[in-house]
C-alpha cells in the first residue's frame, strides 16, 4: 500500500470512527425537541398547514405562511402559558431557597433575597407582603391537573397528547446556568419539562434579537431596581413590543392588565409619595395575581476591604466611593488603593455608563446629590427642592393648542389634536384640537452651596449655565434628552448659585427636586488658549481637560491617569466639605476578579467594590480569609439587581 493511500485511509478511519462512536450515545437530545416545539407553534398559528409542515417539498409554502403571519406577530395566546394556572404552577414549583443556595451558598439569610414583587422588600414602594405564589409543589401539581395537564411517565400531557414542555432562554453566564439547573430540577419534579437554551448575552440582549423581539417562552434576566420605582415601560399596556410599534417598550411578556396598567401610569405621574405608594400597591397586587413574570431573587453583591480601612459606607443604590473622603487607614497611611477590573472610558460622566467611571467620578469630580438607601440626599445642593420646602411649585395651568406639553408617551410636543396628555387630575385626555386643558406645571428653584474648583477658582452661576448649555446640547454625546426637552424656561440668579427651571405642563417626574444639570468649570482655559465655554459641545469629549484630568469640586481630583495601569487621585485642597481623611487614592486596574482578590489578601489593594468582586466563588475566598485571619472585612448586600423569569403570553 502506498504512503498516500495509507494516509488517506488513516484519516477516513479517524473521522469515521469518531462518528461511529458518537452514535453509541445520542448526542444532545435537546435540540431536535426545540425544533418540534417551534413547528408546533407554527401549526397552531395556521391550522391549514398542519400537513404541509411535515413534507419537505412544500417548504416554500410554509415560508409564505409565516411571512403573512409576521405582520401580526405575538397576538396569538400561548397554547400553554396563556393559562394562568400553568404560570402559577411554575411559581409554586420553584424552590427559591434552593435556587439561591446554588449560587450564593455563603449568604446567611437567603430569605432576605427572595422577591415577591417587582421591587425589593427594602424599597419604600414595597408596602406589604404580596401574595405571590411561593414554593408549594403540591399546590403546583394540583393546579396543573386542574389545567388539564396529567401526569404520564414523569411528564405531563393534555387530552390532545401535547407534552408540557417549555423553552427556557437565558444567557450562558455561569451564574444563570447554575440556578437554571436547579430550576430545571424543580420543574421536572412537578412534571414540567424545561428545554434550556443558554445563549450569548449579545444575542439575548441584542437590539434586534432575543428579548427585544420577544423570541422566548420563559426567559430569565435581571432588572436593576432604581430609587425611583418607575415601571411604566415594563408593565403598561402600550409598552408591549410589537412589529406595529417598531418593537418599542419593554413589556416583553405582553401583559396587558388594564387595572395594573392604569395604576402604573398614574404612579409615574404624581409627585406625592403617598399617591405613588397606593398606585404601586395596586400594580404589585395585580402582578401577584397574574403571575406573568416571576421575580426570583435579588442578586447578592459583595464588597470587601482590608480590615485596616475605616469609614466604608456600604449601600445598594449608591457607589461605595461616594464618601471616599471619610475613608482612612488605621495605620495612618496616606494612600488608599482601590482595585477595579474595569477601566473608565472617559471622565465625562454624561457619555459614560460604566460603573468604574462612576466610582472615580463621584469622589474625583464631585457629588451634588447622593442616593443612599433607595432615597435621595442633598450634598452640594442646598437642600432638595421639594414642594414641601417651598422651592418648587406644581400649579394647575390652562394649556392651549400650540403650547409645549409633556404627553403620555413621555415626549415633549406641541399640543395639537390627537395628543394624549395627563390632565391636572391625572386622567389621560386626548386633546380634540380646541379649547384648553388644565394641566400641572412644575416650576423649581435649585440652589447650590458655595464650592471652589480644584484650581482655586470659586464656583459661579456661570458653571450652572454652562452645565445647562452643554448637557442639553444635541452634540454633547448624551443618549437621551427627555429632561432637556421638557424644560420650557430656565433662568439663572445674577450673583447666587441658583437657577429656576420651568417644565412643560404634564411633566411630573418624581425626581424633579434633584439638581438637573452637571457642573463644568466655566472659567477653565484650555491648553490651546481657548475658554471651555467657547468650545463647541461636539469637541468636549476629545479634550484631555474634560475627558482625562477634569477640574473637580469634589473631595479629590484626578492627578494622573496611566492608561491600562492606574489612576491617581489627590485631595482637592479647596474642597468645600473640609479636609479629607486620606490625601491620596490610587485606582489600580486588575486583570480579573481572581487576581483582585489575591491582591486584596496580599495587602496590595485595600478595597474591592461590588462591581469588581461580584458574587461568584471569589466571595467565598474572601469570607474564608476573613474568618481565618480577620485581615479582610466584607459586606454582602442584597443588590438592587433582581433576577426574574418573564413568561411570554403570546406566540408568533
Amino acid at each position, binding site marked *: 500500500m502506498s504512503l498516500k493511500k495509507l494516509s488517506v485511509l488513516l484519516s477516513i478511519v479517524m473521522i469515521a470512527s469518531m462518528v461511529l462512536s458518537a452514535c453509541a450515545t445520542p448526542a444532545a437530545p*435537546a435540540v431536535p425537541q426545540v425544533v418540534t416545539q417551534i413547528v408546533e407553534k407554527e401549526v397552531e398559528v395556521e391550522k391549514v398547514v398542519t400537513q404541509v409542515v411535515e413534507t419537505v417539498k412544500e417548504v416554500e409554502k410554509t415560508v409564505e405562511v409565516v411571512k403573512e403571519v409576521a405582520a401580526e406577530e405575538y397576538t396569538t395566546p400561548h397554547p400553554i402559558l396563556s393559562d394562568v394556572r400553568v404560570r402559577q404552577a411554575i411559581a409554586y414549583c420553584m424552590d427559591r431557597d434552593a435556587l439561591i443556595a446554588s449560587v450564593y451558598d455563603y449568604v446567611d439569610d437567603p430569605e432576605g433575597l427572595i422577591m415577591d414583587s417587582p421591587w425589593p422588600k427594602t424599597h419604600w414602594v414595597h408596602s406589604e407582603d404580596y401574595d405571590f405564589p411561593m414554593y408549594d409543589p403540591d399546590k403546583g401539581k394540583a393546579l396543573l391537573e386542574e389545567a388539564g395537564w396529567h401526569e404520564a411517565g414523569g411528564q405531563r400531557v393534555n387530552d390532545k397528547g401535547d407534552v408540557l414542555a417549555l423553552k427556557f432562554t437565558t444567557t450562558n453566564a455561569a451564574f444563570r446556568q447554575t440556578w437554571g*439547573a436547579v430550576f430545571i430540577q424543580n420543574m421536572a419534579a412537578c412534571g414540567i419539562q424545561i428545554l434550556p437554551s443558554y445563549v450569548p448575552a449579545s444575542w439575548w440582549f441584542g437590539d434586534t434579537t432575543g428579548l427585544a423581539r420577544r423570541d422566548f417562552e420563559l426567559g430569565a434576566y435581571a432588572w436593576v431596581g432604581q430609587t425611583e420605582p418607575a415601571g411604566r415601560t415594563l408593565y403598561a399596556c402600550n409598552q408591549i413590543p410589537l412589529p406595529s410599534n417598531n418593537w418599542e417598550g419593554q413589556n416583553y411578556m405582553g401583559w396587558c392588565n388594564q387595572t395594573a396598567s392604569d395604576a402604573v401610569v398614574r404612579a409615574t405621574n404624581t409627585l406625592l409619595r403617598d399617591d405613588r405608594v397606593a398606585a404601586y400597591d395596586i400594580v404589585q397586587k395585580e402582578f401577584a395575581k397574574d403571575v406573568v413574570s416571576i421575580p426570583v431573587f435579588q442578586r447578592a453583591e459583595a464588597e470587601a476591604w482590608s480590615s485596616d480601612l475605616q469609614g466604608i459606607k456600604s449601600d445598594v443604590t449608591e457607589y461605595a466611593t461616594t464618601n471616599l473622603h471619610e475613608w482612612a487607614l488605621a495605620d495612618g497611611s496616606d494612600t488608599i488603593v482601590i482595585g477595579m477590573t474595569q477601566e473608565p472610558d472617559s471622565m465625562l460622566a454624561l457619555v459614560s455608563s460604566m460603573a468604574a467611571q462612576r466610582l472615580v467620578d463621584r469622589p474625583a469630580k464631585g457629588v451634588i446629590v447622593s442616593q443612599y438607601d433607595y432615597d435621595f440626599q442633598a450634598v452640594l445642593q442646598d437642600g432638595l427642592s421639594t414642594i414641601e420646602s417651598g422651592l418648587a411649585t406644581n400649579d394647575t395651568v390652562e394649556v392651549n393648542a400650540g403650547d409645549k406639553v409633556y404627553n403620555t408617551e413621555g415626549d415633549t410636543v406641541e399640543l395639537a389634536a390627537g395628543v394624549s396628555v395627563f390632565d391636572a387630575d391625572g386622567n389621560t385626555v386626548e386633546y380634540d384640537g380646541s379649547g384648553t386643558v388644565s394641566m400641572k406645571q412644575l416650576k423649581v428653584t435649585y440652589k447650590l452651596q458655595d464650592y471652589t474648583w480644584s484650581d482655586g477658582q470659586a464656583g459661579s452661576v456661570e458653571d450652572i449655565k454652562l452645565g445647562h448649555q452643554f448637557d442639553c446640547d444635541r452634540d454633547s454625546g448624551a443618549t437621551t434628552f427627555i429632561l432637556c426637552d421638557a424644560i420650557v424656561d430656565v433662568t439663572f440668579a445674577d450673583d447666587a448659585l441658583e437657577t429656576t427651571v420651568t417644565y412643560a405642563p404634564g411633566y411630573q417626574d418624581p425626581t424633579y427636586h434633584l439638581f438637573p444639570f452637571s457642573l463644568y468649570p466655566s472659567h477653565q482655559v484650555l491648553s490651546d488658549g481657548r475658554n471651555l465655554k467657547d468650545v463647541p459641545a461636539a469637541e468636549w469629549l476629545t479634550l484631555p481637560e474634560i475627558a482625562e484630568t477634569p477640574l473637580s469640586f469634589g473631595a479629590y481630583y484626578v492627578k494622573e491617569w496611566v492608561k491600562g495601569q492606574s489612576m491617581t487621585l489627590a485631595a482637592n485642597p479647596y474642597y468645600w466639605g473640609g479636609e479629607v481623611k486620606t490625601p491620596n487614592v490610587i485606582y489600580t486596574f486588575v486583570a480579573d476578579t481572581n487576581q483582585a482578590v489575591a491582591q486584596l489578601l496580599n495587602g496590595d489593594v485595600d478595597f474591592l467594590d461590588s462591581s469588581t468582586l461580584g458574587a461568584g466563588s471569589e466571595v467565598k475566598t474572601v469570607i474564608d480569609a476573613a474568618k481565618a485571619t480577620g485581615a479582610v472585612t466584607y459586606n454582602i448586600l442584597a443588590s438592587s439587581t433582581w433576577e426574574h423569569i418573564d413568561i411570554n403570553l403570546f406566540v408568533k
Partner: protein
Amino acid sequence: MTTVSRPILDRGRAYEDKQESQLLVVLRRFRRHKLAVISTILILFIFGVSLLAPLLAPFGRDAIDLTSPVRPAPPGTHDMAGQIHLLGIDQLGRDLFTRLLYAARVSMSIAILVVLISETFGMLLGAVAGYFGGIVDTIISRVIEFMLTIPTLPILLIISAILLRRDVVIPLPGFINRLLSGLLLAPEREAQKVVVLVLILVVFGWLGAARLMRGMALSLSKQDFVEALRAAGASDARIIFRHIIPNGLAPILVDASLALGGVIVTESALSFLGLGVQDPTPTWGNMLSTSQSYMFQHPWLPLVPGIPLVIVSIGFNFIGDGLRDALDPRLKR
C-alpha cells in the same frame, strides 16, 4: 487512449512496489527518533480516549452537580450518588474529567479537519500554480505573498471576534451538520459554530502546503518524464493527480504533522482569549481560559486541560520531525 496509457499504468505499479519497500525503510528510520515514537504513542492514546469519550465519561458533558458547596472542587469530590469526580468539578459543577474527554474530541477534530481541508486545498493550488506557471502562478503566488504579509493573529482575532462572539452561523446542508455534531458530540447548533472556526483557520492554514507543493510542481513540471507524459497525450489533471502530487507528498506529510500541532495551539489560543469555541462546547483552550480565573485558589485547574494540550502540541512537532528524518534524509536537521 488505452494503448497509450498502458505503459504509464505499469510505471505506476512499479512506482508503488518501490514505495512499499520504501514504507518499511521509512518506518525503520522513524523508529530511530525515540521522542517521535513516544509522541506517537501518547497522541494515539489521547486520540483513542477521545474516540471513546461517550463510553468513558462518567458524567454527562454539561451535567451540573450541585452537591459540593465549593465550586470548583478538587479531584476526588463525590456526587450525591457517591460517584467520584476524578479531576474535580469546574465552577459550574460539571465533571472536569468528562469535559476533558469531550474537549480532546473537539480539539482533535478541529485540528484534523482544518489540516485535512487546508493541506488538500493548498496542495491543489500549489500544484496548479507550479504546473501551469505563467499568469496562474503569478496570481496564486501574489495571493500567498499577500496573505503572508498580513499579521495572522490579529486578523484571526478580528474574524473570530466578529463571527463567533456574535453567533454567526454558516448555513450548511443538514447531513453535514449531523455528521459534525456526531463528530464533536455536540448539539448541531454548537457544531455549526465550530465549523465557522474551522473555516477561519483554513483560510490561513493552506499557505504552507501551497508553497511547498508549488516548489515541487515547478521543478517536476520541467522534468523529462512530465514532458513525455504530455507528449503521450496525458491530460493535465491526470499528470497533476497521478504524478505531481504523489511525488510531493512527503514534505506535505511533514508539514501536515507540524500543522496539526500548530492548529491545536492556535485554536486553544483563540478559545483561551474567549474568541474561539465558546462554552458549553468544551475545548482545552476555553477550559484553560476559565481555569485562569480560578487558579489563585484552585491551582490544579489550569493543569487539567494544559497538560494534554502541551503533550499533543509538542508531540505533533516531534512526529513531524521524525517524519522529516524518516522520509528524506537530506532534509535531516
